[in-house]
């Protein structure tokens, strides 16, 4: 099997995907009603997510030449594998909707007086089509170049804002609103679960020395940074969270006013857009892979076009309104995706590990394993 990306590229892609859209409206969504407690609950949630991700990495290393779809087919049969991939497709279309609408409203509110949704959608759809068509190799290489901008954007945001944060607002750790925090978190569940993207890198990574350790360290840092960012946003605006719309620009904006050096947030906003675009492209790639696997589509341009057409249709149905999407996500449907994707898939992952161990033991006993 052709190895499309290096271990380093996989790590960079995961790092970008995991944090890209968590800095726009998510801080406001979570912290307005969840307060500081939601940050601690999120931290615990991240620990679980982190462990599950590491399990996935281990599985991918145990089966370096098989895609996740092939593993699923081997393990649970083609029909179940296709059903799982249909769910994945729905999941990634929603993720793409969140990503595109969020970035659109973000741009509209921070940098533009007016911006046509069609004019906004056209370049990103064309870009997603082109990049999914040329494949993961180029996406990985592009991310390897662009991560510098993403890192710079985040660094600017944090360095400029940390001095203004009073971390005393992070106490008490749990103020008796844990139930509320969990409810807030589950209402925004579509903003999480980005780590599932890794499943689509199975069989395509050229593993390098100490890959697992490096992966664990980088992803651990990324999750820590997300938590830190949330904490900084909350500690700068503890009483006015309801007025904060976009964490990543607002914290820089307020700092820039203080230091009187002009509106520095545009630089940060622009740099952070790179992360958002890479995430969009990766989700589009995953959606295309799902469609290709479910319907056995050989030509990438066909599966890519169809998935992007579906995305465009959904975006127009939602009328580019994040509130419509959030309302949908907050309906009882919200439990469906977490259950299917977070729990079921990880049971399958554990199954793979058990199967692999069994294989190893059988080999040691001299049994030929099919």
């Amino acid at each position, binding site marked *: 099997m052709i190895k499309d990306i290096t271990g380093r590229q996989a790590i960079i892609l995961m790092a970008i995907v995991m944090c890209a859209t968590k800095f726009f409206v998510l801080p406001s969504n979570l912290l307005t009603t969840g307060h500081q407690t939601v940050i601690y609950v999120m931290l615990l949630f991240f620990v679980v997510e982190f462990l599950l991700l590491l399990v996935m990495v281990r599985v991918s290393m145990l089966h370096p030449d098989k895609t996740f779809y092939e593993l699923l087919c081997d393990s649970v049969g083609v029909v179940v594998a296709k059903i799982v991939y249909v769910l994945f497709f729905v999941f990634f279309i929603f993720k793409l909707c969140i990503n595109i609408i969020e970035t659109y409203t973000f741009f509209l509110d921070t940098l533009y007086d007016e911006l046509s949704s069609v004019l906004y959608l056209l*370049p990103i759809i064309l870009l997603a089509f082109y990049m999914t068509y040329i494949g993961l190799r180029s996406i990985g290489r592009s991310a390897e170049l*662009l991560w510098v901008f993403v890192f710079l954007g985040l660094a600017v945001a944090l360095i400029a804002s940390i001095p203004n944060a009073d971390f005393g607002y992070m106490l008490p750790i749990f103020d008796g609103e844990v139930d509320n925090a969990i409810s807030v978190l589950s209402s925004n569940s579509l903003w999480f679960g980005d780590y599932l993207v890794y499943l689509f890198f199975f069989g395509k990574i050229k593993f390098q020395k100490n890959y697992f350790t490096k992966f664990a360290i980088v992803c651990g840092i990324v999750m820590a940074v997300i938590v830190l960012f949330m904490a900084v946003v909350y500690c700068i605006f503890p009483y006015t969270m309801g007025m904060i719309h976009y964490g990543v620009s607002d914290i820089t904006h307020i700092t820039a006013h203080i230091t009187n050096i002009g*509106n520095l947030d545009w630089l940060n906003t622009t740099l952070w857009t*790179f992360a958002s675009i890479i995430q969009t492209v990766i989700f589009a790639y995953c959606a295309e892979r799902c469609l290709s696997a479910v319907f056995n589509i050989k030509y990438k341009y066909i599966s890519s076009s169809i998935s992007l057409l579906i995305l465009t249709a959904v975006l127009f149905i939602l009328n580019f309104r994040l509130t419509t999407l959030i309302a949908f996500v907050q309906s009882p449907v919200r439990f469906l995706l977490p259950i299917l994707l977070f729990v079921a898939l990880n049971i399958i992952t554990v199954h793979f590990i058990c199967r692999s161990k069994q294989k190893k033991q059988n080999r040691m006993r001299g049994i030929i394993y099919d």
Partner: protein
Amino acid sequence: MEKFSNKQVEEKLKTIFHNSTDFKVRKFISLQKFDTILFFFDNIVDVKRLDKEVIEQLMQNFEVDDNADICKFAIENCLTVGQSELVDNFDDVITKLLNGFCALYFDKCGKFIVLDVKNFQSRSIAEPPTSAVLKGPREGFNESIATNIMLLRKRLKNNDLVVSQMPVGKYSQTQVAIVYIDSIASPEVVKKVKEKIKAIDIDGIVDSFYIEKALEERSYSLFQQVGSTEKPDVAMAKILEGRVAIVVDGSPMVLTVPYLLIEDLQNSNDYYFARAPRVTFLRFLRMFGILIAIYLPGIYVAVQVFHYKVLPYKFLVTITNSTLGIPFTPLIEILFIILLFEGLTEASLRMPSYLGLALSIVGALILGDTAVNAGLVSSPAVMIVALTGVLLFTVPDQEAQLSILRLVFTLIGGILGLYGIVCASVFLFAYLSNLDSYGTPFLAPYAPNIKEDKKDAFRRYDLREMKYRPKSIPNQNKIRQKKL
């Protein structure tokens, strides 16, 4: 070949060359008894050598056995020309004659003796105008393939240096030489280059650019995928890294493959006099220059049209004051100045040099100043285009591509603002990272990341640190040096 008479051979060759007036025939009696005929093209052979080393020698009085092979005898005993061979078919004789050889035929012999007496005039070896150095070798290639190969052989005195020459072009029969070090270059790359050159079916090769287009894996791409140099020292360094050089007769530009984008940031001066930290600084400066040259007009237009709020107040006031009363929109204004600038550049390249000074005065001073005073364009716009115009030349080899990109980013900035510029940048990066040159990623050593190769990329390490040949370039011999 049949044993034709001299008359028959003369008629046949004259017919083949359509009685061309520069096709000369000289008849004489050699060794006092053999009717001999000599064919050559005037102007491309050294007539003095022809007289002295061929005719004069054959007119001497040698004792020859009647049954002896006269051709063999002449080569072994009479002719003093260094390179001679026997040819027994007309096709080869024609090729040789056209390449500056003379052909000798003894009556009813059935074989030609072809002798290398060519004398193609060429420019002397001089410093190339496109890549001058402050300190370091000043020799440059010229239009003669023989001279260019000599310049490479002079620097690489090794039995592993291979020169593989072949004619290309139906009418021009231009000699194209593939030069590489057999123990370093990748056989796959050499094979691929040879195949691509052999596959060329064209009337003539006017310049190495014709070969470049055939060597490129994506010939419609905006970006060049084949390196070119006019300096033998640069070509030598590239050959030593495992690249393959292609020398084309009639062109001073020697091509090299595989090619990386980062090569354009490197300059001969970086290796000859500047210390490593200084080189690192210069390379970052070049990169910065490229970024400013491509993005600045686009960002300026985007900020003016869409994002004026992001500017600090004083800066905004300055720009607003200077653009007050300008009849064009910011996009049209900057496009107008860019096109004006491009027009002046194009005209200055084609204009006789004695008019160059006048043009620069008319262009830069009168047109620019008058346009601003007339209120057609604003001063910041002129300044931005002039600045980017100069910065495009921080990497002269990519100037053409960069100026196109500048135009594209300006248009996108004017239509979509910063969001469009970011999207276009990601597209550009994706496109570049999808380019490969003979198995080498175009953006190596950064995408994919190759740690060892970064020692001579944006940051240049000391020569002692560069122990290995670039990993990104396929080669057979990894180690460049043990210890300096």
